[in-house]
């Protein structure tokens, strides 16, 4: 059958209608829609960019200056133990991160064998420094991505152990947003590139979100939401709910890091309103329940066990807890209480007992013991400093200046002692990281 002719004008009219419709619809679509379509068509991968409103991250200031919890001398004794005195060969990123988080960027030490804050930062942000320590037989810590920089993390040697721990520690240490980050293939990246990659790569339901939550809050507040590469819109409300989800025993370090992150979000909410009222109330209720649990399960000597989440049962049916796990639990609980409102504290007597126990336990450790468990004891040092409304670096540098004899260098631990602790740390991480 002969088909009717289509006039040239009709043909062109249809082209015009169709082109206008498609172009108009594309232009009217959201940025995410456009980027999704472009990536479906083989274009660049969807890479949302979050606006970061500051050059240096927010700081959660401690609330209490209580010499009864820890005196100057006690604090100095503990901090002396946790100076970052690491062997430079196969230097563990996790150690450096914990040290930097505790000591901050401006820390300087009289002992030349102790890494300064700047040296710690450079190890983490300069692939060359990492390469000098680990050689090229190990994968780099810093990895170039199409839109940013990612950090290799996990249980492998030479990796940062926890997701976004690298970013969180540098953030808490006060690193600048545009601090250069030198990757294996580029010298033009900065901290912002790592932050953006973390934001877009973040998955709410991954096993560890504690450090991501902190880092994001300290950088992007008062912005409450952002969009990930998968197109999911996330908020601090969701992060808070995620931190509260499930049994309290879950989460790194016997679930205590989640508590610290929750308090950080709550403190940020005080100034920047990043949580809804309902979520804020849920966080408070959650922390009150934590307070009530630890109030009834503190041991006579002042420590909390790693199964503190069982409440009174952990006291009634104690488990065989290795010392470092008790240090983890006790040190972390002191740490979050130092920045939390008083309503969430256990009794003063219990705080004093806990502090006494960690001070005694820490100062009794040999240097090689500390070196083996550095990350856990670093939290003790930070917690005690917070209870004096100060920071380890500020206190220590002042103490060094005033007590040069007491702050004199001590012998560094042997490299073997540091190498030996892979198994316990991995064991601590394993249940939460699988």
């Amino acid at each position: 059958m002969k088909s009717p002719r289509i006039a040239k004008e009709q043909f062109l009219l249809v082209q015009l209608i169709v082109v206008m419709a498609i172009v108009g619809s594309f232009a009217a679509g959201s940025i995410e829609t456009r980027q999704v379509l472009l990536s479906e068509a083989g274009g660049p991968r969807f890479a949302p960019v979050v606006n970061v409103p500051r050059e240096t991250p927010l700081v959660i200031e401690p609330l209490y200056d209580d010499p009864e919890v820890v005196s100057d001398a006690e604090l100095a004794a503990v901090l002396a133990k946790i100076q970052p005195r690491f062997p430079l060969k196969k230097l563990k990123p996790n150690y450096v991160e914990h040290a930097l988080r505790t000591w901050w960027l401006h820390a300087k030490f009289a002992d030349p064998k102790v890494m300064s804050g700047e040296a710690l930062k450079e190890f983490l942000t300069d692939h060359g420094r990492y390469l000098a320590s680990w050689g090229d037989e190990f994968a780099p810590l810093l990895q170039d991505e199409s839109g940013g920089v990612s950090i290799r993390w996990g249980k492998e040697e030479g990796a940062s152990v926890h997701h976004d721990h690298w970013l969180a520690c540098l953030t808490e240490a006060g690193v600048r947003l545009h601090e250069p980050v030198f990757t294996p293939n580029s010298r033009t990246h900065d901290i912002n590139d790592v932050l953006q990659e973390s934001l877009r790569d973040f998955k709410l339901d991954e096993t560890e979100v504690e450090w991501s939550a902190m880092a994001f809050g300290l950088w992007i507040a008062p912005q409450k939401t952002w969009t990930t590469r998968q197109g999911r819109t996330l908020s601090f409300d969701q992060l808070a709910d995620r931190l509260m989800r499930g049994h309290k025993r879950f989460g790194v370090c016997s679930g205590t890091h989640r508590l610290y992150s929750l308090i950080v979000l709550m403190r940020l909410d005080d100034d920047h309103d990043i949580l809804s009222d309902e979520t804020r109330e849920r966080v408070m209720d959650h922390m009150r329940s934590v307070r009530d649990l630890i109030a009834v399960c503190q041991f006579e000597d002042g420590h909390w066990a790693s199964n503190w989440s069982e409440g009174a049962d952990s006291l009634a049916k104690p488990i065989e807890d290795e010392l470092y796990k008790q240090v983890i639990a006790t040190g972390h609980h002191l740490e979050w209480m130092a920045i939390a409102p008083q309503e969430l504290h256990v009794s003063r007597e219990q705080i004093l007992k806990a502090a006494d126990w960690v001070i005694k336990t820490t100062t009794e450790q040999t240097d090689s013991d500390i070196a083996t468990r550095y990350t856990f004891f670093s939290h003790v040092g930070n917690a005690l400093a917070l209870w004096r409304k100060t920071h380890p670096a500020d206190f220590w540098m002042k103490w060094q200046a005033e007590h040069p004899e007491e702050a004199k260098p001590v012998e560094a631990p042997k490299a073997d002692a540091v190498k030996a602790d892979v198994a316990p740390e991995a064991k601590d991480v394993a249940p939460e990281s699988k």
Partner: protein
Amino acid sequence: MIGTVIEEPMAEAVSEEPPFRGPDISKLQDHTPAAVRAPRVLAGLVFAVGIIYLVFCMRPLWHTDVWGHLAYGRLICEGKSLPATEPVMPLATGIAFVDTAWLSQVIGYLTMQTIGIAGLQGLFALASATCVALLAARTYQRTRNGWFSLLAMVGFLAVAAESLSIIRPQVAGIACFVMLLFRLTSPRLHRSDWVLIPVLFGLWANLHGSFLTGLFLLGSVAAGRAIDVGLRTGSWQAIIRDHRLRRNFLLLELAAAAVLVNPYGIGAYGAALQIAANPNLSDLTEWHPQVLREVTGILFGAVIVALAVLYRWTPRRVRAWEVISLVVLGWSTFNSSRMIVWWAPVAALLLAVHGHASWRRWRRLPLIPEAPARAGKWTVVAVGLIWIFFAYSPLGIRVIHGKSPKLERSVSSDTPLAAAKYLREKPPVGQVFNTFEWGDYLQWAGPAGMKIFVNSHAHLVPREVWQAYMQISDLQSGWEEAIDRYGINTIVIDREHREPLIKKLKEIDKWKLDFEQDGQVVFIRKKPI
């Protein structure tokens, strides 16, 4: 003597006319307008379609998708807006939600509210009946044979039976696809196509996300035309100048533009393209490759073989679009059994048309038989049949007599009616873990704000959450920890497929079996997280 001669009455004269047997129908004149007269076969086909309509009307509402879609429809109607992110699964909060079936959901919800379940069943039956009626109509138009028209209907239903058995917005998509196929296979070109086809796509893009299959069909018709002209003329210029090809191409463009008339604009394309790539769907059987061992697979294979034979024998010209659409849609079905429902109408139509042609060839008859006689009475019979089937359907009974079917009789036996009732009376605290297939019904009929774990919108569930669901459901390593990790305080599962999980939970002290009825089991945590 004078006598009266009683004369015997004279015998009646013997008539030579035949005995009266009623009025002579042949002398009746058909005064119905010629345009509305129908052949006898119409009544037969209407009868067949009517039976199909009744059968589909009686189908129970499946326990999965439809309830979730009704719940979304309820949300849209109550909020008077479309949610931008997943609104009912708390573990999927923030996931971008492009609801390409929003119109189906709203229609379904409003139907449920005004007419009830009978209305939903009626809508579903109407959509299915429309599909078979259109296939039959087109086949009859091509063959003038009622039996082969019936073959097209039966072939479509048999191959697509499994997919058609579930009431969900996809049925609207299938109806749109068959309507498009009907228009594209018309022997005459209609000016109205310039309006009808774009309007169809405009509606389709709001009814269901399957509009891409329609664009594919349009594209294959256009590409097929180009190939046919090219093969016939061997000239590129002839292809470019072919007006029918230009027509098909323009229709494709207009259809593609019409799809943009939806709340998400061009975003509907992104959503439709992305969904099939979601890794969660690989765990759902309907997204698995078609297996030839199953009944559907056997029928699929049989139709392929029949088509292959018929294409060798048929005296009808084989158009390139037929081959393109059969091969591409067939290949898609091998990759994902869900695609069979799009392959089925094309295959059924072509099977019947070429089957008829081959049969006529074998009988040494002309390809197209003479047009049958038409009469107004058959039109009346057809209309009467339509009315009868409607009147006796649940929808008809509801509309005419106001009687609604009972819920228990109108839903599949796997619907967790008892569990939902129990949970309404005793609302769960915190996170619930539920059988995937029940998530939709629990969302619809469970207590407000119930935190279901997953529903049938698996593509909206975060990957880690989906993996946790599979881990718990299949008792994979770490399943117990996963339950604690998600803070699950209530578990609502079916005994039929989750017996091992039920057995394990009974062995664990911290769980208590709180309810069981009709294979619906609810466990609660003794000390809620």
